[in-house]
């Protein structure tokens, strides 16, 4: 049985109930109290997102300042339950337009109840596609477009299909004056480097985000410089694959609109896109990653009350590019008194709440080397020599126009039977995922 949720609760951080929707009778009404007393008010909070109390399982996640709790009494499917919550939140966001937090819930609780009623019936997920739901659930409470009381005398044949979702992601008859497609390749690069500067673990998780404003029912075809796709193409055209970099994707997952059969046979990504914003694909790469930054730390403990920190950061992407919002966090012991800095660019200070020296550089050009050196004074403590365990140095950054994997869009073709022209916009950005350097 996939989910069969017995109840769904939204709570704020104090444990007040914001939304309370019971789907089944097989759990008691006091489940919120159980959650509050056994999870929220104990150290259990945050130790594990799936917990069992009195024969019921609580699956909870925190989104901004709201806890969403799914209660099940059967042996439910945890992956499905969490995914459902994530999708439901995305749906709510698309209705409220932006934030999902306590205030938004309070202001829209009637709408949320309406939606909860629609997206889950008797504990089983139903239709969660915003595209379709927006056709008949509106904040104004008007009659649905298929209502025969309105202009049309009979419902259009495909409306049924849409509501119950055979081609659930796009409705017909969309018209845009200007046909535009936006495609963003967003990569986050994860790194774990040892003290000695060897890479222990490095991978890139990327996603392709699209925003489509296209009329009619367009067919899109996307070509990337990934290895499988290129080889397939070369085979088909019976010529050797072009020189230049090819990327080996470890694994790809696609939005439901992508024709997977065609991907498996022809290795091209072809799809009829949903209207508006969506995530086309996700991928993972572990080979041939270009790290945008090298970090060379040196931390010396001078006696019991002084430390010398020296961090050299080198940008290794193209000289014409630059990184934004670079933050380097160097951990220091809890009993740090103060620190004095010398930086070649940006600003640095000691953050006592994080126990870190935080060095920020707003704009970091390519092919340059910046340094921060700091003298840290420690409060001499009575607790003897207990050696300090150093957490890793962490880094945050964004590099526009750069992909750590080297992935590029080779082409993006839009085909629609009316034959209109489209404008395509492609952007690249690489962010730091968990970029950790042990020191």
């Amino acid at each position, binding site marked *: 049985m996939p989910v069969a949720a017995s109840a769904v609760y939204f709570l704020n951080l104090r444990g007040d109930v914001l939304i309370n929707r019971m789907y089944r009778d097989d759990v008691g009404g006091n489940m919120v109290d159980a959650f509050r007393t056994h999870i929220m008010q104990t150290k259990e909070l945050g130790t594990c*997102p799936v917990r069992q109390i009195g*024969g019921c399982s609580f699956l909870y996640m925190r989104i901004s300042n709201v806890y969403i709790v799914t209660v099940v009494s059967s042996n439910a499917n945890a*992956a499905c339950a969490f995914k459902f919550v994530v999708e439901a939140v995305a749906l709510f966001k698309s209705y409220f337009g932006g934030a999902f937090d306590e205030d938004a819930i309070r202001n829209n609780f009637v709408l949320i109840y309406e939606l909860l009623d629609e997206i889950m019936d008797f504990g089983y997920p139903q239709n969660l596609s915003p595209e379709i739901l927006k056709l008949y659930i509106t904040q104004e409470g008007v009659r649905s477009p298929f209502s*025969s*009381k309105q202009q049309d005398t009979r419902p259009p044949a495909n409306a*049924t299909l849409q509501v119950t*979702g055979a081609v659930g992601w796009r409705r017909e008859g969309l018209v845009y004056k200007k046909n535009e497609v936006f495609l963003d390749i967003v990569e986050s690069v994860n790194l774990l480097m040892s003290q000695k500067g060897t890479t222990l673990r490095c991978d890139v998780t990327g996603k392709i985000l699209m925003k489509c404003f296209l009329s009619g029912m367009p067919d899109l075809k996307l070509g990337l410089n990934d290895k499988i796709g290129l080889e397939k193409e070369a085979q088909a055209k019976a010529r050797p694959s072009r020189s230049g970099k090819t990327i080996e994707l470890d694994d790809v997952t696609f939005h439901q609109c992508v024709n997977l059969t065609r991907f498996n046979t022809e290795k091209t990504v072809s799809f009829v896109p949903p209207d508006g914003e969506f995530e086309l694909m996700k991928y993972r790469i572990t080979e041939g990653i270009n790290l945008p930054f090298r970090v060379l730390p040196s931390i010396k403990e001078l006696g019991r009350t002084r430390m010398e920190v020296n961090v050299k950061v080198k940008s290794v992407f193209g000289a014409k590019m630059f990184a934004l919002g670079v933050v380097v966090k160097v951990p220091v012991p809890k009993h740090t008194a103060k620190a004095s800095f010398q930086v070649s660019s940006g600003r640095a200070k000691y953050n006592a709440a994080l126990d870190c020296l935080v060095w920020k550089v707003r704009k970091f050009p390519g092919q340059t080397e910046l340094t921060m050196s700091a003298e840290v004074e420690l409060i001499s403590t009575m607790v003897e020599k207990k*050696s300090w*365990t150093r957490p890793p140095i962490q880094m945050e950054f964004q590099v526009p126009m750069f992909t750590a994997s080297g992935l590029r869009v080779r082409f993006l073709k839009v085909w629609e039977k009316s034959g209109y022209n489209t404008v395509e916009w492609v952007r690249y950005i690489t962010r730091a995922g968990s970029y950790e350097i042990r020191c």
Partner: protein
Amino acid sequence: MNADNRKGELVELKNQLRQLAGSRAPGVEDVKRELYKKVISYMTIGIDVSSLFGEMVMCSATSDLVLKKMCYLYVGNYARGHPDLALLTINFLQKDCHDEDPMIRGLALRSLCSLRVMNLVEYLVGPLHAGLKDSNGYVRTVAAMGVLKLYHISPSSCTDNDFPATLKTQLLQDSDAQVVANCLCALQEIYLAEASRSDGSLKDRDSLYTTSVIYLLINRIKDFSEWAQCLVLDVVSKYVSSNPEESFKMMDILEDRLQHANSAVVLATIKVFLHLTLSMADIHQQVYERIKAPLLTLVSSGSVEQSYAVISHLHLLVLRAPTVFASEYKHFYCRYSDPSYVKKLKLEMLTAIANESNTYEIVTELCEYAANVDVAIARESIRAVGKIALQQYDVNAIVDRLLQFLEMEKDYVTAETLVLVKDLLRKYPQWSHDCIAVVGNVSSKNVTEPKAKAALVWMLGEYAYDMLDAPYVLEGFVENWAEEESAEVRLELLTAVTKIFFKRPPESIKMLGAALAAGLADAHQDVHDRALLYYRLLQQGVEIAERVVNPPKQAVSVFADTQSSEIRDRIFDEFNSLAVVYQEPSYMFLDKEHRGPIELTEDTGILPMDSKLSDDVLPSQHVEANDNDLLLSASEREESRGGVGNGSYAYSGPDLSGFDTPSPAAPSNNASLSSTSHTSPAIDDLLGLTFPAAPVPTSPSLKLKPKPLLDPATFQRKWSQLTIASTLDHTLSQPAALPSPQPLLRHMQAHSIECMASGGQAPKFKFFFFAQVADSPPSTGFFLVEFVVNTSSGISQAKVKADNADLVTAFGNLFVSTLRKFGSS
């Protein structure tokens, strides 16, 4: 807001609603909306607004959709408490069921089915029938789910109206995929419930898992929404394919599901693949290779909670097929920011996949975590290093690492490491030299945790020859006997001191006397008994005592597994469910009232005899539990039980001055030790094996507690701890009287013998019974019976285990006579 205040507001709301009820003034809908909103928000925060029921219903005659929905929500919440008032809503709901707008029809039907009022069931049947035939798919999806709701209110009116059959047809014929999906989940639930309600036959449910249904579903897989796909794939995974070609074809069709963005769909697909290939070992292996990449992607995407759900499944697969994942070990490195529940799983996976080629890297990484700020994870990592050491042949480098931990001089690191070094030495005694040199340097003052202390004491006793100052360190422990809070340490201390006495008598004789004296005066029963045992053994003669207490040891080759393979297979069967997350089969955690007697599947017993503490979730606890047992070598364990069993003997106060040289002491107390239980040949009866010569005190008036209580976990634990005390064969006089297990269960129950679990199929049934001696304190005096009966031949066999072995015969007689009565009654 205080209660009075709130009450006042409710009254006011009531009045306002009443005024609006009949009003048709313009703008009245907006006012109503505001009032309804208020009511719903009260309802949300848990204030009882059911007193407004009448007014709410009166106001609900409206064409405003939002208003309608709020009203339905309200009515659905409170109808059960006000069945008569709920009747008022029926009228307009039924009217709405015939509205021209399919959305309104659907909405009304859904609300109608959600009223959950028994005596309104008759009003449901008509609209449901109509709904299932509706031209609009949306209404049909609602109706299909409505049937399930009806079943939960009143199973009989659902089946009497032939709804399951209608759903079945709909399942095969409907053009709308969501309708099919809803039919599928409704039917699954209904059939399962029907089976447990009547004869327990799953024939109906199995009719869903036939070739025609499964093929239909697979071929339409792309029509289904991602949620419905999860459901369909789950159903497909229950299908048993007839031949490999069929399995391949199915996997071909479903392969692209592995690329789906929804992790639940991918997991469901993986389940299908794994189950389809269970009988084909090599293909099964290839499946692991195929699913590796998608799983690793899912782990690193989505929210922490989602990736936790995936990682739990990955964990299961890694433990099943470690070699497949061995090359991907870097994926299991912990991120600093990972929550500790994820780190823990990752550590276990790293431990599992360590092999010759990656051990060095993995252990290096684990050593990094040992310095982690998170103490719990640091401990886990050290344990992980130890486990790797125990499973590898080439432990050279690892031993060095472990010993380096001791130099970190952190209490918890030292503590964990000591326990590990002890285990390591038991498996690889050849390392004793290197280890002991380092352990000897550990200052015993830095060791505070009982487990670590016990380990240290054990090593001191065991390797007294190699550690020059061993007697003096132990002496320190003995001197602090009174301050030592842990009985575990005191027990270990007794053994260690006794052992060292055999090895280096001159240095330890005084300490032995002190330890035995302290032990005999100890308030803890086990400690006292062990001290007494050693004392008496020593009286028998030092050589005899040495043979018992300090025999040459064999290295332990394999440590007992923490979870029986049977349990793990069961969890694997429940892939893609909470069972995997909790790491225990679902019957262990589902609510008791939902649970009822546990069903046995076919003839595989649900209560594996060898299962070790399977109710423990945390593997680390298993390890500790095992350590406890294994600290004592087999012979020692028997000894200690002997001591316990012997506790009732009267003894004259031991005279410690009775022996002051390690020469055989005169057997002065021999008379009181006549009953043979100390020497090894007679140990058998201590373990509860039937001992023909032993006179069993028959107690003809054995009375059983009318309603004994025992939870399955305890039952299981007892079952695995106790040995079979008696086997009873009996032939039922009227075998035909047992078409299903229920009558027998009721009969036994009437005679105070409760059933813990039953199962099997005609003609062979298997039961687990239990009973408790009347007037015995809770959790003692239990009898556990495994009862197998063949109903066609009438031959039955019962295996009895008991807390109190003396009463076995009496209970056996009672049991057989009860069975006999069953035949004749």
